[in-house]
């Protein structure tokens, strides 16, 4: 099984790569000891989004399904978490049920929507615009729910202002449970991200991952090799969308609110931009690139959110026109090629240079 951590679908192999990854992980673990809690919380906030980027990487990068609906499942799970937590009286029971319920909601919605699209042979550009339409409709609908009649049990949807009043995720424990916030939130997210990253790497290099890549390259050929193409597409769509749902639950837990604006435009464009910029075919590039973009975006947003968004849009255009494979992946390839050359020529022939 562990063998699958390295393979044709993932960049990076050998002691150098894993050593570097280990150093990064250790640095991330040590970070809260040196930084002030506000920055730690901020970093934890960035990690929230990476799950949905990894999900998009799996379905778009590996399998060629460009879904604009990541924030649809993000929102569905986020609202689902809120409704369940509030109606079950919060605390460990409510929030844990909310976590599970939110993820199940996202997965079931993805299975239903995916079934109709994939078995209706919607693909290519239409897949993108149908998922986007559904996403914008959800945002529009939630924006209309300001009145008191829009409540599920005790949970008010609250229109544009969004839903509030849910607790952060709380693990069962003494004194009403262990609340997932600040430094603990940060550590749990690092752990979750590391586990998700490694599992997805193994999945990408497994037989399942091979079939996904085959479908991306030539779906008809894959079908004639005996693969039930549409079942694989549906499976990866559910997987990727559920990861978006996980981001939604974590986001709602982190800020204890969720609004329609985290579903509609421009929020819906963000996952696409992160993943395209990073290099959609590779999980490592997506992980690194998404984090860097979030960091950069956050720093710019302080001055002007609109300008930051203009830059993000321009970045997407530049990526597509000039580096279609993605910036981070391009740099990663370059590093790999340099490392390879150095291995091949252990010592530059200094004498010959004169």
């Amino acid at each position: 099984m562990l063998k699958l951590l390295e393979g044709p679908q993932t960049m990076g192999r050998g002691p150098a790569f894993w050593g570097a990854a280990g150093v990064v992980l250790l640095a991330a673990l040590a970070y809260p000891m040196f930084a002030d809690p506000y920055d730690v919380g901020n970093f934890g906030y960035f990690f929230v989004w990476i799950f949905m980027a990894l999900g998009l990487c799996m379905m778009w990068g590996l399998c060629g399904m460009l879904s604009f609906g990541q924030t649809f499942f993000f929102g569905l799970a986020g609202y689902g978490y809120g409704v369940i937590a509030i109606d079950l009286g919060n605390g460990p029971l409510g929030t844990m049920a909310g976590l599970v319920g939110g993820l199940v909601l996202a997965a079931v919605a993805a299975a239903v929507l995916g079934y109709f699209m994939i078995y209706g042979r919607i693909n290519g550009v239409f897949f993108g615009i149908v998922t986007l339409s559904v996403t914008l409709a959800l945002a529009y609908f939630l924006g209309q729910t300001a009145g008191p009649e829009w409540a599920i049990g005790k949970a008010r949807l609250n229109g544009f202002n969004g839903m509030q009043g849910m607790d952060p995720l709380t693990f069962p424990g003494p004194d009403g449970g262990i609340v997932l916030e600040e430094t603990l939130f940060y550590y749990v997210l690092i752990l979750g991200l590391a586990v998700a990253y490694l599992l997805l790497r193994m999945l990408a290099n497994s037989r399942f991952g091979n079939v996904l890549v085959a479908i991306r390259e030539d779906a008809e050929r894959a079908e004639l090799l005996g693969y039930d193409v549409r079942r694989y597409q549906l499976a990866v769509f559910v997987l990727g969308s559920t990861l978006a749902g996980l981001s939604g639950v974590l986001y709602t837990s982190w800020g204890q609110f969720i609004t329609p604006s985290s579903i509609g435009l421009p929020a819906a464009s963000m996952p696409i931009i992160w993943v395209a910029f990073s290099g959609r075919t590779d999980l490592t590039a997506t992980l690194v690139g998404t984090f860097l973009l979030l960091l950069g975006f956050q720093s710019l947003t302080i001055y002007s959110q609109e300008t930051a968004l203009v830059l993000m849009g321009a970045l997407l255009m530049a990526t597509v026109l000039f580096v279609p494979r993605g910036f981070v992946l391009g740099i990663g390839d370059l590093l790999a090629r340099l490392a390879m050359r150095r291995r091949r020529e252990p010592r530059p022939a200094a004498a010959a240079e004169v």
Partner: protein
Amino acid sequence: MLGNLFAGFYQFADVFAFLVLSAAGLAIIFGMMGVINMAHGEFVMCGVYVTAASYHAGLPLPLAQACGTAVAFLIGMVLEAVVIRPLYTRPLDSLLVTWGLSLVVTQGTLVLVGSTFPGIGTPLGGFRVGDYTFSAYRMVLFAAAIGVLGFVWFLFLRTRFGIQARAVMQNPGMAQALGVRRNRVYALSFGVGAGLAGFCGALYAPTMSLIPTMGSSFIVESFVTVVVGGSSVLLGTAPAAVALAVIRTGLNAWYGQIIGQIGLLVAVILIIRVLPDGFTGWLTRRTA
């Protein structure tokens, strides 16, 4: 009685006009080039803003609307040459590039123009049928939608450009070998598509409040109409708009706007399950 009947027709005509006008430009570009222009909403917005600006500068409304349309057409032509042409063989990438553009334009307008812009009052007033009063301008919009369909019919079936365009659509390589300049056909098609989006914006400018993100209130309807319709405007967009308008009008009347919007989308998802190539594919198969 007559008033009620006319009210039903009026509701239908209003939705139908909105679907046709917002989708025609998108459908032409998709049908010709297989490209979905994600900045479609921004071309609509461009039409709205140029119309409003020219109107405030003193032009009469119809002339201002012509300006809105023309500017969108010209920008479309330029854009095609600069960002779409390098991506002819990569339709998914042209979708991404236009999406990036949409983000740049929306947010850029927010920065440069601000979040509001003075609007235009709806002209022409109202008229009475039975016990109800109706807006005359909505009837103009309905007529304009029919006019757009007529224009598309004329353009593609009765002009030299139309013959060349259809040749390129059938077989780009062969058309080029016969001396059709594919790039020019594509540029013009994209321009016409963008111009129709601008025209849509110009027409709706007097009916809406002007905000830079207003494009997004057009795109869901235009997307679903094109998805259900397929690649042809006349055989796809028009019948799709009729079907969707009937569904939407019924749902609106009985259950309200919100259910209308959601019901429309559910209907779309059910329809694509049974009509894989949309109305275009279905009608072409039936008549083959």
